[in-house]
């Protein structure tokens, strides 16, 4: 018997853990998504993703994630800049709070928002009392697309701060001064110095935000009760059997669709940015 490598032996428990609790489950939904109810091989479950309510839900999810990515990304970028002007202690505090908000968002966040912006919420009441303005007089609603985007800001902006802050801290005032000494103006500084340096990190942060918003389930589920057709909510409904039974394998195909999109963003995107940077 060949001697087993000690280095390999020590990693076996972790590999087993990942195999049992990650790879095996994913492989089994891949398998289910390729078979119909009579266990015959089929691709129709994936075909279904491209039309009807599933396509609409995918589109709505992508729209939501995209809008949330742009708003939180640019707002977060600006906040990173303004925070970089503060002291170190403030930044440590912000970092800790951001970590808390970005990771423990979910259900509490949804309820906090209902408490602030709901019909009986404090913000709505305060606006009424101070400015005599009824927030609900227009088309504002907490449970629609824009309401959800506002809530998502509360974990998306902190995430942006976590991932993008190191890059912003890296920017030196000397660069701007050098640019001025060499006769450059603000636009030149942006075009030739800031964008090439910060751009790639900014773009990859944006895509992280996209993935995060795309797969968020808890907040949306707690807030909307499924009134907005988003893919994660749809999967949840399918599993709860609120739709015709016998569609169980369809939820596997939907779940695989989400995994594919996330993987695509994560592995393909760096390749694209690397190319962009080179040219």
């Amino acid at each position, binding site marked *: 018997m060949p001697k087993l490598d000690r280095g390999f032996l020590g990693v076996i428990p972790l590999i087993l853990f990942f195999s049992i609790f990650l790879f095996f489950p994913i492989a089994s939904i891949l398998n289910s998504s390729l078979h119909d109810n009579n266990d015959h091989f089929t691709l129709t479950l994936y075909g279904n993703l491209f039309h009807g309510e599933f396509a609409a839900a995918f589109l709505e999810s992508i729209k939501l994630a995209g809008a949330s990515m742009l708003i939180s990304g640019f707002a977060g970028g600006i906040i990173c800049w303004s925070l970089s002007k503060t002291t170190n202690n403030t930044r440590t505090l912000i970092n800790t709070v951001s970590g808390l908000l970005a990771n423990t968002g979910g259900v*509490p966040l949804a309820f906090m928002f209902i408490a602030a912006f709901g019909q009986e919420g404090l913000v709505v009441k305060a606006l009424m009392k101070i400015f005599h303005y009824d927030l609900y007089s227009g088309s504002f609603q907490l449970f629609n697309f824009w309401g959800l985007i506002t809530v998502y800001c509360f974990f998306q902006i902190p995430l942006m701060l976590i991932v993008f802050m190191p890059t912003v801290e890296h920017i030196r005032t000397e660069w701007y001064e050098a640019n001025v000494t060499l006769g450059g103006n603000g636009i030149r500084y942006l075009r030739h110095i800031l964008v090439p340096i910060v751009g790639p990190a900014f773009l990859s942060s944006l895509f992280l935000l996209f993935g995060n918003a795309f797969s968020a389930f808890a907040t949306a589920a707690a807030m909307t009760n499924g009134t907005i057709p988003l893919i994660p909510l749809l999967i949840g409904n399918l599993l709860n059997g609120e739709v015709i039974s016998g569609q169980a394998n369809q939820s596997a195909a939907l779940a695989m669709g989400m995994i594919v999109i996330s993987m695509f963003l994560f592995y393909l995107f760096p390749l694209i940015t690397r190319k962009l940077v080179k040219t």
Partner: protein
Amino acid sequence: MKRRVSKLAAGINIIVALFFIFPFISALEFSLRGYGGVGHTFENYFWILKQTNFSDAISTSIKVAILSSVLVLVLVVPTIVHLHLAGRKFHKFVDGLSVLPNLIPSISLAVAVQFSMPGWMQVSYYELSFFNVLIAFPFVFRSLDSALKSIPLSTLVEASDTLGGNWMKTLFFVIVPSVRSATIASVLITVALSLGEYTLATVLHFQTVPTWAVNVSQENLYGSVAISIGALFFSWVALLLLVFFPKVSKRIYRKFQGRYAL
């Protein structure tokens, strides 16, 4: 120019602070409202404690969190230490592995679990612990990995070996104490994730604190907001512990070491 810039930055910071603080204040005020929204009392918090199924939910959550942290300590921490010693070859591989749980949307994971796990596992809420460890793995890996990089690990291990320590003693009396704060941070983040995890718990029909909060919101929205505030407060306490605990634990550890070591 420079003064204008710093004024602008300060202005943005104040607006952002208000934007983030306001929901907290609103939620606090909301949770303290009396019956029918009149007056302010602690009624809603007492109401939560009176619910019979709440104690079940919180005990489930705590048990799941405890098993998750034990798994992190028994499985994940030793493996990551190993990656810095004999298993250096596999460091890159595990590094690549560690992003996967972040990449798989948790709803997809939930579907996968429901499809694949055997029946005897699906009936026990301890099932959640394993997946919480999986979800927490990227954070645990990153914090321990950077902590281990910053200490002279091989020197410490050699010293422990020459002094006659076996690998158990080396791990628990030499390595873990030198990355104490990262270990505590790992356990705390696992606990926080376990207590706040909603997606898997709701899809697999387990009643934990977050699922309880959502279910009960139809009945008493004030109660749901109150429990959310409670959960956030708990996370803050955990965070404070993270900052202050290292000093205390050092003292306890010294005592413990004096009694049992060698």
